[in-house]
């Protein structure tokens, strides 16, 4: 590692030594995000105290040609906050003020280091909440959510981070401080806010965010239903949609996931059933009740073997505890696991689950499934034992599952992002020209390529040269679309 001493001195001077960490023991805490398989130890970590300091730090990096990586809570699951060699990490951990809660206009202005759940906590006294709810909401930051365009169980009805951010103050890669978006949905020209949201920290560093707040719904109704097969549970989801109902959330878990969750938190799930659905409706009482009755009928019509309706807020919380524990809980039934994140058109859920099961059998590995059934966002958990030498096989299986999602007309990622992890898989989903134009956007914001380089878009250095000149879009190759 060799950060040029002159550059280093300039960057440290931009903040003052108190806000710079270079002790190797301490910088170790920044060497990876939630995807711990990738690690790069940063030489220095900057921990600025306000937006102006972020701008000064970025300006110093820009002037000296030093790459930089923004970091929130480090819960990302795609290696987005992975440091770059010879670069610096800029942590937003100290920008954690809730600057304004405006109940009349139903919005809040916060700094990027505020956690997702703290926004709702600050708004709750006014009967308001911040809708996007990633499972990591207790710790992940809103700055990270903006970068990843994070989603959660309730995004089926309410939309993703991009639908709830009105404006951001951003330090551009040259250190200029600008605002993207505004006080209403009206725009001055192309929606730069929209393209920045979900750009995974590659277009600049967010220093202030204006989020929309929603009025808490009048009622919430939640049920947990068991089914004799994953296919039947899938049918239930289809029928709910066909009935014109937009549930707040529809989550599915399979046998393995149920077993793991139940072992971990004893939330009242039935161990041994092939599939369970969590369905939640919310809204004005009359409508919610009418639609909830319909959902119950649909469940019964598909051979539901047990229907548990949350009778109190505590019971509802227990159902969600089981669902949200499922990820970490598989650690109880397997020494190691990979979390995958792919999306298929919802109508292909049964098909994709069948194929995942076959692929797991072939690889001799177990796959647990817990996912957002309403929007087709899968989170297959590939279980393996590193000690038994299964790591490579598991990694291959996990990657193959993501690529299967693309083959079925879906996406490589529904919420965890591309980051470092899937950059080299991007050509499976987009053609060469598509990626080249995405690169134009990146270049427009960051011509020097200093802001979180090596993430999202594949580079020859990372992924090897691809032969030939033009690579068609994958859907073109499969005959689904015609280019010209």
């Amino acid at each position, binding site marked *: 590692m060799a950060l040029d001493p002159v550059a280093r001195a300039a960057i440290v001077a931009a903040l003052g030594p108190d806000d710079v960490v270079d002790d190797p023991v301490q910088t170790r805490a920044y060497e990876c995000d939630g995807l711990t398989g990738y690690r790069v130890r940063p030489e220095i970590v900057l921990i600025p105290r306000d937006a102006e300091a972020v701008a000064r730090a970025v300006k110093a990096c820009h002037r000296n040609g030093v790459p930089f990586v923004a970091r929130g809570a480090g819960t990302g699951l795609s290696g987005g906050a992975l440091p770059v060699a010879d670069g610096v990490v800029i942590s937003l951990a100290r920008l954690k003020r809730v600057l304004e809660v405006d109940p009349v206009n139903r919005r809040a202005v916060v700094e990027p280091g505020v956690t997702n759940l703290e926004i709702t906590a600050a708004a709750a006294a006014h009967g308001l909440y911040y809708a996007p709810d990633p499972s990591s909401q207790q710790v992940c930051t809103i700055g990270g959510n903006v970068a990843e*365009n994070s989603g959660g169980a309730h995004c089926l009805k309410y939309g993703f981070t991009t639908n709830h951010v009105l404006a951001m103050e951003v330090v551009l890669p040259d250190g200029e401080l600008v605002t993207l978006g505004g006080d*209403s*949905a009206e725009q001055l020209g192309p929606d730069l806010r929209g393209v920045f949201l979900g750009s995974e920290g590659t277009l600049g560093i967010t220093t202030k965010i204006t989020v929309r707040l929603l009025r808490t719904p009048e009622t919430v109704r939640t049920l947990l239903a068991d089914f004799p097969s994953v296919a039947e549970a899938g049918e239930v989801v289809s029928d709910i949609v066909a009935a014109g109902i937009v549930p707040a959330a529809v989550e599915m878990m399979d046998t393995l996931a149920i077993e793991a969750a139940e072992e971990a938190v004893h939330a009242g799930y039935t161990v041994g059933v092939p599939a369970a659905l969590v369905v939640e409706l919310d809204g004005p009482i009359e409508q919610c009740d009418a639609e909830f009755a319909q959902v119950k009928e649909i469940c019964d019509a598909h051979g539901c073997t047990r229907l548990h309706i949350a009778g109190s807020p505590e019971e509802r919380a227990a159902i969600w505890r089981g669902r949200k524990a499922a990820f970490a809980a598989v650690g109880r039934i397997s020494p190691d696991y990979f979390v995958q994140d792919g999306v298929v058109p919802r109508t292909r859920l049964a098909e994709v689950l069948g194929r995942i099961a076959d692929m797991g059998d072939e690889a001799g590995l177990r796959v647990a499934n817990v996912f957002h059934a309403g929007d087709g966002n899968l989170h297959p958990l590939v279980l393996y034992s590193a000690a038994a030498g299964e790591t490579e096989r598991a990694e291959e299986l996990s990657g193959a599952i993501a690529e299967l999602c693309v083959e079925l007309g879906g996406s490589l990622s529904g919420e965890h992002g591309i980051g470092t992890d899937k950059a080299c898989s*991007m050509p499976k989903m987009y053609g060469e020209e598509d990626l080249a134009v995405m690169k134009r956007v990146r270049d427009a914001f960051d011509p020097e390529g200093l802001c979180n380089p090596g993430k999202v878009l594949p580079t020859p250095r990372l992924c090897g040269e691809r032969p030939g000149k033009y690579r068609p879009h994958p859907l073109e190759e499969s005959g689904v679309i015609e280019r010209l």
Partner: protein
Amino acid sequence: MSDREGTLTAVKPASLKEAREAVLDTAGRISIAGAGTAADWAGRLGHVDAVLDTTGLSGVITHNPGDMTVSVHAGTPLRALQEELAKHGQHLSFDAARVADGATVGGLVATADAGPSALVHGTLRDLVIGATTLLSDGAVVRSGGHVIKNVAGFDLAKLLHGSYGTLGVLVEVVLRLHPVPKAIGTVVVECDLAEAARLAGEVLASQLEPTAVEWLSSGRLLVRIDSTEEALPARLDRLTRLLGDAATVADGDGTAVWAEHAALTRGEKGAAVLRIGVRPSLLPGVLEGLPAAAVTAGLGTGVATVSLPGTAVAEAHAAVHAAGGTSVLRSRPADLDAPAWGPPPSALAVHKAVKQRFDPDGRFGPGRFDPWEIS
């Protein structure tokens, strides 16, 4: 449109291939046109050599009712698409006034238009999940996809939203759909703007979940509820009680009052129509300060459309800007020389850099962002 009308080439491609050939074979500057329902919105088009008419790119490509997504050719009139989708009990949750005039999907995206239900469903930027775009150098780019949840790659459709034909030709658009509400009701209160703002505040603080809250300069507040049939009477009843003695339920689903809203949004003949967005609580104050005739004011969204005398446009931009908001000129008298935009956004340099990378020779939509000089 052109100061050399006689030499203006018109092309109407029927496929992506033809569109690409047209862009590559045509020398000079090009105006990208849809149905023409917003041809004079934003900055006045400068000199162009050709018009690329997108209405030949029409029709549904794939509609998967079970997935609630549809991909369409961008020149498809949204009205026609909605008719098609209605057969399946689905629609695009989008109700800008000019849909009824035949506006195309691509044109609606490019002009960032929106209607009253943006309060709940957002604008088209929130409903477009994928796009195929043709750039002026012939590059064809696909972004997003066919699934509602997708974070892979940069969301280029967002850049096209509000681009007014300056960055690329939208060729195909993939949209997220919603079920058509089974029953719709609208409560009307005859009142002035100040009273409407007070009542809107109460409705928005309640848990009644209105889909639209709009005041019209004819002196009416409209509050719309999308619902199931069973629940609608009770929901309207509670809303009416909240709004007080002056509140009545509009006949049927309120089609007539919403038609009045759409007419006001289109603006008065001979007036300059300005679209405004500010913090919702500031909207009444801003509107009171303008010499506006026809007004529709989204009291939950902060978005209003007003008809002004042409001479008042520059001052109106300034007043909106002073309130922290944004404004853009829509229809106007042909001979009006008024700025289309107020002061530029702080990220003007990025807008210029994006334009430079997407359309380096400045071929598409010259003048649309004047006086900022990015197109």
